[in-house]
């Protein structure tokens, strides 16, 4: 238990919130509601896991919200145009990967700082979705697409299954593969990684492609729920994805990645949101509660952290 708490300090606030909700509401602990929370958490955890790699690399991708919209538009308009649904879904993932590739190339080959590069693609990609649809909903009715959120293989809702697989893969990648270690190496000290002969550009591009694809999957999940795609979906999602990662404790300066933290961060955020709704909290108070809980949880984490000795070498990349 103490080991878990050390590696996943977020477990404590999560437990606190859950106990509080169990005591103050009679519906929080029902099976249906817990499934709600976990499905919602799974949906944001999936892109959160890719974003974890990006933050561990010391960079971040602001364009993911627009990718959500683009993926939905690509998938749904393809289905409308008669493309078989599975293929349409692959096309959406490819579109996400393409956005990631564009980000990666602009960041590495043109040397544009990631903040601006991905902010620019945020604007451009949403512009593309809007221009392509001319602001119209792309409405579908696809059982295949629906299976992504509605399917229950082995009795487990698909999003949860996907998130578990993604989480396991992410954990393995970060802790047991060269690629994962190299991502952390680049985040810890990019110049050192270059001097050590790591293929820094390719690592960075790969991470952006992963984030792009996860954005594509996120878009598919949203479009699966709503059975439509349009240029307005996914607005502001970039902050949601980054928030769960940061809440999970992956250092913003890069170099370290907490996969478990990200998953718990997603569960915590969604538990809070669900709880506020169960308590019928007026919208004005919802925001302030989320903000206060965020700050409190992180202040607690920061206070618990013993100050690390000043690293002898540290490069902040942004």
């Amino acid at each position, binding site marked *: 238990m103490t080991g878990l708490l050390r590696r996943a300090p977020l477990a404590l606030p999560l437990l606190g919130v859950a106990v509080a909700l169990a005591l103050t509401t009679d519906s929080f602990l029902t099976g249906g509601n817990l499934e709600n929370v976990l499905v919602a958490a799974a949906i944001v955890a999936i892109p959160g896991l890719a974003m974890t790699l990006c933050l561990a690399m010391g960079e971040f991708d602001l364009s993911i919200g627009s990718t959500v919209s683009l993926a939905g538009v690509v998938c749904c308009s393809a289905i409308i145009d008669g493309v078989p649904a599975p293929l349409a879904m692959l096309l959406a993932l490819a579109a996400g990967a393409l956005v990631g590739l564009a980000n990666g190339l602009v960041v590495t080959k043109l040397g544009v700082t990631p903040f601006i590069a991905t902010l620019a693609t945020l604007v451009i990609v949403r512009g593309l979705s809007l221009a392509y649809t001319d*602001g119209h909903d792309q*409405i579908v009715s696809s059982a295949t697409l629906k299976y992504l959120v509605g399917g229950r293989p082995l009795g487990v809702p698909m999003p949860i299954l996907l998130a578990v697989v993604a989480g396991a893969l992410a954990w393995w990648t970060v802790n047991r593969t060269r690629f994962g270690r190299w991502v952390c190496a680049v985040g810890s000290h990019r110049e050192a990684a270059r001097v050590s002969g790591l293929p820094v550009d390719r690592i960075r591009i790969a991470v952006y492609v992963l984030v792009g694809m996860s954005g594509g999957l996120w878009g598919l999940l*949203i479009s699966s*729920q*709503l059975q439509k795609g349009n240029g*307005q*979906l996914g607005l502001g999602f970039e902050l949601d994805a980054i928030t769960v990662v940061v809440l999970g404790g992956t250092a913003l300066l890069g170099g370290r990645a907490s996969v478990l933290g990200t998953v718990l961060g997603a569960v915590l955020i969604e538990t809070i949101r669900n709880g506020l*709704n169960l308590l*019928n909290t007026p*919208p004005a108070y919802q925001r302030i509660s989320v903000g206060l809980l965020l700050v409190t949880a992180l202040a607690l984490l920061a206070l618990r952290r013993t100050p690390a000795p000043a690293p002898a070498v540290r490069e902040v990349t942004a």
Partner: protein
Amino acid sequence: TDPNAPKDDKVVVGFSVYDMQYEFFQKMEKGTREAVTAKGWEFKLHDEKSDENEMVTGAQALIDSGVDVLIISPFKPSALGPIIAKAKAKGVPVIVDDIGGGGAPYDAIVISDNSGGGKLAAEYMAKQIAANGKTGKNVASITCEPSAVYAARRNAGFKEAIEKAGFKVVAELSGNSKAEEGYKVMKDILAKNPDVAGVFACNDPMGVAAANAIKDAGKSPVKDIVAVGFNADPEALTAIKADGLAATVAQDPTAMGALTVKLAEQALNKTAITFDNAAEREVYNPVQLISKDNVDTVK
């Protein structure tokens, strides 16, 4: 008219639109533009892009560019003040389209009867619940972002009428006008109140999303939980036809656009306008309840 006549003679209408990303406003723009060009007048468009700063800057720029009359569908009605102040200084009449007037001295406002629309939704919901043979007395409401005054009116109209019909609004939560949030909020409502008999959403993206959540929970948004939206967006009409939504309240943005042009002409000619609500200088555009019974009559 003489094509060689000096340009000055031609009436120029400036139209500032809320956001051309939305079909609702695309239709409103179409109705306005067509009515303007039909009169042989010139049409100038500005897109506020859902931003109050852009709204003020752009509308003032239209006035600066010498329009004879300004029609505006304001992103933030409460930011109309500085625009109307400038218009007054230059003697340009202002007709507001939809959303709200924010208390500024515009010449007239064309507005859907939002409160009446909420009432229509409530009456339909009560009737349909009974027709479904349900006895539950609990309903829910999903609201737009807290700052949307027009949407608050819809909710207030709905609430008053549904309570009068003997129901109780057990959950009133915001989906911030967004489909994604409307879906999640509906899931939370279902978890807490599995027995709700109906749900009203302040716009169609949230309404259809809530209906999807109901379907994903294995229930019908027509027979089990009566889901009603607002707007008659194409997605709502499609859903109604497929039993994926019970009803919506239709506004007619194209007609509203045409109506604003008519009022603009009256204002230019200084002829008196007949108001539905003289105190607020409101001219109502009727709303209509659309369900499976009449969905085919909507174009």
